[in-house]
C-alpha cells in the first residue's frame, strides 16, 4: 500500500514536470515544420531540420532589432539601479542625516505602489517632456521601479557589516565617497548580484509600460515586439514558433547555467508580473 502511494506521487510529480516542458518542446518542434503540417498534424515530429526560418524571423521579422533594444534598455536600467541604489543604500545604512528616516519610509511605501497606481499620469508627464517613443521612456521608469527594493536590500545588507570597518576608514581620513568607492562597492558584491538579477529580469520582461510608451517599431523591446510580430505573421505559424523559440532559448540557457543564483535572486526580489 505504502509503496503504491509513493509510486503515484512520484508519477504525478513527474507528469507535472513534463507538462511544464511539453509546451516548450512543441514550440521548438513546430518551428521546423511547414505551416501545413503544423495545422494538420500538430503532434507529428518534424521531418527536416531547416534553420532558415530562424534567420528570417531574426532579420526580416525584426526579432534581432527587438533583442538589441531589450539588451540596451535592460543593461542601462540595471546599471543605473545598481549605481544609484548602492550609493543611497550605503548612505541610508551608515550615515545619520536629516531626512534619512523619511526617505526610508518613502521607500517602503514605494515597495507597495504598483505600476497601476501611477502609470496614467506618468504617461501624460512623459508626453509633456517628449520622452515617449525614445529608449529613455523605458529606461527611466524601469530604473525608478527597481530603486525601492534595491535600496532596501542593499541597506539591509550593509547593516550587517561591522561598524569598525567604517570607523577605521574614517580615522584614516577617508571621506564618505571614498569609503563608498573603495570599501563598499567590493564588499557589496553579493547583494548587487541579487539585485542585478531581478532588476534585469523585470526590465527584460516588462510589458505594460513598453506597450503604452513605445509605438516606434525600431525601438520596441522583446515583449511588445513579439506581440507585433505575432499579428504581422498571424497565419505564418512557422515564423511565430521560430520567433518564440528564439526569445525563449537564451533565457533557458542562462537559467540552466546560473540556476542557483537566479532562483535566489528571484525569490528574494519576489517579482511577480
Amino acid at each position, binding site marked *: 500500500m505504502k509503496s503504491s502511494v509513493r509510486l503515484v*506521487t512520484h508519477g504525478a*510529480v*513527474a507528469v507535472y*514536470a513534463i507538462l*511544464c516542458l511539453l*509546451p*516548450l518542446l*512543441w514550440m521548438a518542434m513546430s518551428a521546423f515544420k511547414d505551416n501545413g503540417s503544423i*495545422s494538420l498534424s*500538430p*503532434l507529428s515530429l518534424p521531418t527536416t531540420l531547416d534553420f532558415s526560418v530562424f534567420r528570417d524571423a531574426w532579420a526580416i521579422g525584426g526579432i534581432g532589432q527587438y533583442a538589441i533594444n531589450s539588451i540596451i534598455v535592460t543593461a542601462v536600467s540595471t546599471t*543605473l539601479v545598481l549605481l*544609484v541604489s548602492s*550609493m*543611497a543604500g550605503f*548612505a541610508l545604512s551608515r*550615515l*545619520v*542625516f536629516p531626512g534619512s528616516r523619511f*526617505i526610508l519610509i518613502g521607500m517602503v511605501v*514605494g515597495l*507597495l*505602489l*504598483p*505600476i*497601476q*497606481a501611477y502609470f*496614467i499620469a*506618468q504617461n*501624460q*508627464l512623459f508626453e509633456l517632456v517628449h520622452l515617449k517613443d525614445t529608449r529613455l521612456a523605458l529606461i*527611466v521608469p524601469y*530604473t*525608478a*521601479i527597481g530603486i*525601492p527594493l534595491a535600496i532596501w536590500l542593499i541597506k539591509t545588507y550593509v547593516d550587517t557589516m561591522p561598524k569598525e570597518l*567604517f570607523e577605521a576608514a574614517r580615522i584614516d581620513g577617508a*571621506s564618505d*565617497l571614498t569609503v563608498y568607492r573603495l570599501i563598499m562597492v567590493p564588499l557589496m558584491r553579493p547583494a548587487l548580484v541579487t539585485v542585478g538579477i531581478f532588476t534585469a529580469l523585470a526590465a*527584460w*520582461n516588462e*510589458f*505594460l509600460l513598453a506597450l503604452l510608451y513605445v509605438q516606434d517599431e525600431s525601438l520596441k523591446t*522583446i515583449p511588445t515586439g*513579439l*506581440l507585433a510580430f505575432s499579428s504581422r505573421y498571424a497565419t505564418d*505559424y512557422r515564423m*511565430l514558433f521560430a520567433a*518564440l523559440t528564439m*526569445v525563449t532559448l537564451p*533565457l533557458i540557457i*542562462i*537559467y540552466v547555467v546560473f*540556476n542557483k543564483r*537566479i532562483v535566489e535572486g*528571484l*525569490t528574494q526580489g*519576489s517579482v*511577480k*508580473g
Partner: protein
Amino acid sequence: MKPTSRTGVLVLVLPALLIYAFAVLVPFVGTIGLSFTRWNGFGTPEWAGLDNYLRAFKDAVFMSTFGHVAIYIAATLVLEVLLGLVLAGFIAAHKWTGFYRVALFIPVMLPMVVVAVLWRTIFNPDVGILNAVLKRIGFQDVSFVWLGDPRTALLSICVVSGWVFAGFFMAIFLAALTRLPPDVVESARLDGAGEVKIFWRIKVPMIRQVVLLAVLLCVTGGLQGFDLFYVMTNGGPYNTTEVPTTYMVKSVFRDGEIGYGASLSVLVTIVGLIIAGGFWYYQRRHPADVEY
C-alpha cells in the same frame, strides 16, 4: 555616523531620489489629482469633483473586473501557492530532484507576453496542441474555442498563470523548507509520524511566515494582472475576462478618458493597500515564535 560632508550625502542620495520622484512619486500624486478631473488629454483638465468615482461605482463592467480578478486569485492560490507548496514538500523530501527543480522553474524565466502568445497558440482551435491531444485521446469533434468561450476563457488564463508561477512559489517554499532544523522533523519521525503528516503538521506551520508572504504576493500580484489578460483575450469574450488594469488601459488609451481612468487607478490602488494592510495587521497579531 555623521557624514563627512553635506555634499557627500547629497551626491550619494540625490540621484536615486530624483529618478524615483520624477518617475513614480510625481506621477502617483498626478494620478490622484487627475482622478478628480474630466480630461481627454488635450486642453486643460476640467474639475469634476467626485463624479468619476460615483461613475466608477455604477459602472457594471468595472465592478465585474473585481469579480473576475477574485476568481483568478482564488484559482491561482490553488494552482500556484498550494501546488507550489506540495511540490516543494515532495522535492525537499526526495533525492535526485534536480530535473524537477529545473523543469518547474523554467516557465518563471520567460516574459509573460511570450508565455501568453505561446499559450494563445496552444489554445488555438485550429493549430493548437490542446485540441489535437483531446482529439487523439478520443474526443472526436473537438474544435473548442477555449479563449473565445465565456465559460472557459477565464479558467484557461488561470491555468496558464499556474503553469508559470507554481514553480516560482515552489522555489520560495523549497528555500524555506531546506532552512528548517532537521532535529524537529527527526524527533517527529521517531515518534512514528508519517511523512505526509510531518509535512502538514510540522513543516508547513514552521514556515508559516513564508506561506503568508506567498499568499500576499499571489493576491496583490493577481490584482495587478495584465500581460496574460491583454494578450490572450484583452477582456473578451463579452467582458468575461476584463480585469481592473485591462479596463483602465481601455478607458485611458482607447476612450481617451484620462480622468475616469485615473479614478479607477486610485480605487484599485486603495483595494491593494487595504489587502496589504490586512496582511500586515494579521502578521502583527500572530507573530512567529521563531523565524526560519
